[in-house]
């Protein structure tokens, strides 16, 4: 599975420009699903199986997009001004490397700052691709780039950019591979534009019209020095989300996930995330409403170029998802 994670995280597909990762994922899942389509917003919607007597239509959502930057202006000397796509941490810009969709690499620099102890604003930053004028600059207004860091295997832990949410996609893909039977009609939806407002999930949920929705996404941890007061930690298992900054998981889904994990003896954690939300929020309010929840993969340093996950957490996330989908759901 490490190879899969590396392949996914080393693809460059920021919000709105997900074709690259869409193709990679499509190839991975093709042998395991009955039907694939790509909808109007670029969501990759894959159906597996059909609903049996005691089954439901279940939508699983993992977002394919990652945070990134979009060029707003190329100045007279070939420096590129930009805006952010999704939640960009201003403290992580200076000196970062980026890669545009055509492969062009760049470096982020800043205007001279009067106060070096403060993070620059987006407007004070620019990307340098080594050009000296708009003429020899391969980048133009509207071009997008993502942060550029290679995947690193630390053994028990893995580090990469865009673990948010390629790790969720990896868990979905691996579950698809290992899932033997299911009474449900399953929609594995690899959504777009989550980072800019859950847009892909909003439209794909309307389109799929599921009975139940589960997002697969990262969540933060409280286990780093002088960290937040969160109880979730790396290595303690996948997290069953109870509440985050945007939604309350349906209590019936929380119970279903907890009971399934306990029955299958899979370690799990109870999660409350103070800031941030996932595609589940958008699925929850589709049409007449959808009971929704989230299976979270604990991740350190979210929205930095070096997000870290625990391999046992990832494996147990796959086991939990497979266990959830294998049996009928009793809400």
């Amino acid at each position: 599975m490490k190879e899969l994670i590396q392949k996914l995280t080393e693809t460059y597909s920021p919000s709105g420009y997900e074709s690259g990762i869409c193709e990679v994922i499509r190839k991975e899942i093709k042998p395991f699903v009955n039907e694939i389509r790509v909808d109007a917003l670029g969501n990759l919607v894959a159906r597996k199986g059909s609903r049996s007597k005691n089954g439901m239509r279940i939508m699983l959502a993992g977002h394919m997009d990652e945070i990134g930057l979009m060029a707003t202006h190329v100045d007279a000397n070939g420096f590129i001004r930009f805006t952010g796509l999704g939640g960009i941490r201003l403290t992580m810009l200076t000196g970062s490397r980026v890669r545009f969709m055509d492969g062009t690499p760049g470096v982020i620099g800043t205007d001279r700052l009067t106060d070096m102890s403060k993070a620059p604003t987006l407007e004070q930053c620019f990307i340098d691709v080594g050009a000296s004028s708009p003429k020899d600059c391969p980048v133009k207004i509207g071009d997008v780039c993502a942060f550029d860091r290679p995947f690193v295997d630390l053994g028990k832990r893995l580090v990469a950019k865009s673990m948010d949410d390629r790790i969720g996609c990896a868990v979905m893909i691996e579950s698809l591979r290992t899932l033997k039977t299911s009474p449900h009609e399953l929609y594995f939806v690899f959504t777009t534009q989550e980072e800019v407002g859950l847009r892909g999930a909003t439209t794909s949920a309307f389109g799929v019209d599921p009975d139940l929705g589960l997002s697969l996404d990262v969540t933060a941890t409280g286990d780093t020095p002088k960290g937040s007061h969160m109880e979730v930690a790396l290595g303690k298992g996948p997290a069953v989300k109870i509440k985050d900054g945007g939604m309350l998981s349906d209590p019936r889904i929380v119970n279903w996930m907890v009971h399934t994990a306990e029955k299958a003896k899979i370690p799990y954690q109870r999660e409350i995330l103070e800031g941030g939300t996932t595609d589940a929020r958008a699925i929850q309010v589709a049409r007449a409403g959808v009971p929704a929840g989230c299976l979270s993969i604990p991740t350190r340093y979210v929205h930095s170029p070096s997000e870290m996950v625990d391999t046992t957490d990832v494996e147990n996330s796959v086991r939990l998802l497979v266990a959830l989908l294998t049996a009928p759901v009793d809400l």
Partner: protein
Amino acid sequence: MDPLFPFLKELLTAPGLSGYEDPAAEIISKKWKPLVHEISRGRLGSLHGLRRGNGPSPRPTVMVATHMDAIGLMVTGIIDGFLRLTQVGGIDPRVLPGALVTLHATGAGLSQSIPGVVVLPQTRLLPPDIGLNPVPLEYLFLDTGLPRAKVESLVQVGDLVSFAQPPFELTGDTIAGHSLDNRFSVAALTICLEELQNRPHLWDVWAVATTQEEIGTIGATGSTYELHPNLAIVMDVTFAKGPGANDWQTNPLGKGPTLCMGPNIHPALHKSMKELADKLEIPYSLEYAPRHTGTDGYSTQVVAEGVPTLVMGIPLRYMHTPVEMGAVKDIQRAGRLVAEFIAGLALDFVEKINWDD
């Protein structure tokens, strides 16, 4: 004593935090059952009660929506037997120190209500820059007084905490307590249903107690889509004039419900309701919402093809504290006004109205 009081007090004491509304839904369902023809729960837990009209089929429908969820707190961690908390819905942490609460503990497969207090640690136990300033929620604790081992066995992350301040009467037929937002409106809708027992009406009426309004009008969105009504009337509480609240956003306490106007409300609906209140001599005041009303009405208006929406407010002082205060008469006035409005709805009402009237 007003016959409304026992039901109101039962409603106000029932827990029913956003996302976990079952205890409130049960009480409301029991009360509404004899007043409606059908009762069911929506996909996201909203309570849907259908009262059929006697117009010819197919009848237009009006949805009257009041949210039944209440704000509260949730356990996020256990430290030495003390509990860390997060909010469910918007709470100013400045009203929390010393608040009496009930912890609904679900650890070890049991279900226990444990009394406790939300507490402010001593200054030296807090980050040095806080001093005597307000303490953010993340540094407050819930203390049950129980020993650490007991707490660890009884409580788990995600357990809910509701305010324990019992409702009580103040002078001038007012009531104080928690969850008047929005159980006051649920009571008003109940009165509306009771009035409709004696008033023939052509339209079908969906009485809806929505879920998770405090999180983002979640239940109302789903219910409106599911029931696709022709009209939506939303009843929620609004700000009453009182200490610290006296500007244009506030309305007099105990002088009738408010009729909201602004882009979130269909002007023709507002006009009809206003004319009716004048005719019936039911006191009201006007409420101005230049943008959104901050209620379920914000979503009902834009579901699917859109639904003409009216928002009516019941003024409360001290909203979102354990001692919200409202006038019982305003509940009765709101309920009656809506009932009379429904009773007077002609079958072609919606076709006849337009935004520029």
